[in-house]
């Protein structure tokens, strides 16, 4: 097998040969460089998305269901359109009849309402809900507090605002205790939610741009003609699937769905985020994989070509080495190591390029280049070198020493 001597001599020859043709070697590695840059950046983005997803899921809570007229993900919206609205009254009855829940919380929303303080204004969703919302959402106010049962039942004009809303409306002032206008109606700010951050580049799913007011107040101000969502958080220790089946059963009876018919409501979970995430990841993955394979293929062919040139150029050297006692495998390994070294150099060059780029990605999507990707891309580089070097190296190894020596 490969002796240490062969290996050392191989490395030495490779470095000498590459050093003698610096520009040629660097140009040859272009395909490998692109491949490594794509692979590492792709992994960095996927890693960053995963981190964003984890954050979003943890903020939603993992054992909460969202009963709604609509299916969040998939489903057939044209059927859902004809469903009866989900009402506050249904939520109330679900709370009474479904005992496995820790909290059953109605949430009603209206989109893109103007919130004003002095001369500043922002637009965002306004939600009406009840105090247990704190339990189902898993988020707590960073400043102030959520509204209490008394304020909720009395429908007091108080609100808790998202982090971005607070930042945009109140520059230096403390928002707590101030009165803002939502669609022209006055509300006293009693709490500010902690920052949730964006998911997939949008704040659509985060509470940062929203405001929360008591349900009773919401219905009075914004009307009762909306279908609501019911957030159901299961008790701890209750088997998840059993609880879900029980919940669906109870809600079907509340909605008067005859046995054998489909649910006339959507049972949503935060899993839909996971589905969105998986969709995005697999798209990035497929595109990245295609670009990577293509550039590695092109790179590999380039390396093979340059190795054939290298073998041809050094025919006489190969003859001399054979005359001096180099065996076939010594010559084979010599050129394999040379090809692998060129590719490894390309890989390192690729890393040197993608490292600063990953720092730029980090600005947009908090992430870091995973270490295993560094290892993987280096291994891929070496593998490409070995694969594309094998035919030229074999050609060199099989050369007849007499012919090789005579070659000019």
């Amino acid at each position, binding site marked *: 097998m490969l*002796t240490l*001597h062969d290996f050392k*001599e191989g490395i030495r020859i490779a470095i*000498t040969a590459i*050093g*003698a043709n610096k520009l040629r070697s660097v140009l040859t590695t272009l395909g490998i460089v692109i491949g490594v840059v794509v692979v590492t950046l792709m992994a960095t983005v996927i890693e960053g998305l995963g981190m964003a997803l984890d954050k979003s899921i943890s903020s939603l809570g993992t054992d909460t269901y969202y009963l709604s007229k609509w299916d969040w993900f998939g489903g057939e919206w044209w059927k859902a359109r004809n469903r009866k609205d989900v009402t506050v009254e249904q939520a109330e009855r679900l709370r009474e009849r479904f005992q496995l829940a820790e909290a059953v919380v109605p949430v009603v929303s209206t989109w893109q309402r103007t919130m004003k303080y002095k001369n500043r204004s922002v637009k965002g969703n306004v939600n009406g809900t009840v105090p247990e919302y704190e339990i189902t959402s898993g988020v707590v106010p960073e400043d102030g507090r959520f509204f209490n049962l008394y304020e909720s039942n009395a429908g007091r004009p108080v609100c808790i605002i998202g982090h971005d809303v607070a930042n945009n409306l109140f520059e230096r002032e403390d928002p707590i205790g101030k009165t803002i206008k939502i669609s022209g109606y006055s509300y006293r700010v009693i709490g500010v939610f902690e920052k949730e951050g964006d998911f997939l580049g949008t704040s659509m799913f985060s509470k940062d741009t929203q405001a929360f007011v008591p349900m009773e107040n919401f219905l009075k101000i914004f009307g009762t003609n909306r279908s609501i969502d019911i957030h159901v958080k299961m008790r701890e220790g209750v088997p998840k699937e059993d609880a879900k089946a029980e919940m669906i059963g109870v809600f079907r009876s509340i909605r008067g769905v005859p046995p054998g018919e489909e649910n006339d409501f959507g049972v949503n979970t935060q899993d839909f985020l996971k589905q969105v995430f998986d969709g995005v990841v697999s798209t990035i993955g497929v595109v990245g994989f295609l670009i990577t394979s293509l550039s590695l293929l092109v790179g590999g062919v380039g390396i093979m070509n340059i190795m054939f040139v290298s073998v041809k150029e050094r025919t*006489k*050297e190969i*003859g*001399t*080495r*054979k*005359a*001096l*006692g*180099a*065996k*076939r495998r*010594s010559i084979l390994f010599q050129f394999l190591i040379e090809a692998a070294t060129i590719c490894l150099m390309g890989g390192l060059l690729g890393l040197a390029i993608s490292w600063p780029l990953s720092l730029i990605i980090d600005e947009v999507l908090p992430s870091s280049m995973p270490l295993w990707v560094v290892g993987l891309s280096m291994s891929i580089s070496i593998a490409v070198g070995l694969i594309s070097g094998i035919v030229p190296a074999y050609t060199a190894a099989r050369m*007849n*020493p*007499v012919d090789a*020596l005579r070659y000019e």
Partner: protein
Amino acid sequence: MALIHIKDVVKTYDMGAELVHALSGVSLDIEENEYVAIMGPSGSGKSTLMNVVGCLDTPTSGLYEFGGQNVGELDDNELAEIRNRKIGFVFQTFNLLPRSTALHNVELPLIYAGISASARREKAEEALVSVGLADRMTHKPNELSGGQRQRVAVARALVNNPSIILADEPTGNLDSKTGIEIMQLLVDLHQKGNTIILVTHEEDIAAHAHRVIRLFDGKVASDEVIENPITYAERT
């Protein structure tokens, strides 16, 4: 027993349409510590004979025994091993690795012999000192004169203590003065007990040998002993 025993060796090359008989039945024996010159016009088969003797090529038919071993039965790796351990080559065009120092060039056969780095270095330095290049070890071939390059090549041929040194037109690319220096080196090596086979077409180079074998049309035309080979002994 003879170090080299060649009997009825034939070497034919298949050049597509026709078969070229480079050697058509050569027989000769070479003993240890002989200094033999192989001569002949171009096309006479002397290069082919040299390749066969140097185990770079195997005969089409006939017997070639090197140190009692039938070379025809050896595979590629075994031939490489014989070249590595038993034969030292000196080429007309020097065939040094252009980007390596003299020292590394001389170390090369030792690398393929699997000798440790420190022993390698020691032996290579010794060989370079013996050819008078003690002060040129770290120079690369392009920093050396033609004569010095050929000395490096001789050191490389010596370094593994081979059974024979095969020199193929060693002075062909040198001027006459440096050519004489190289020949002097070979004479010294012969006097130290080495077996030397010299391939040349120049009479005055062949005159250093103790025996001259002349080839013609792939056959041995004559095989004679030189009475008074040039030894340089009287001049030093």
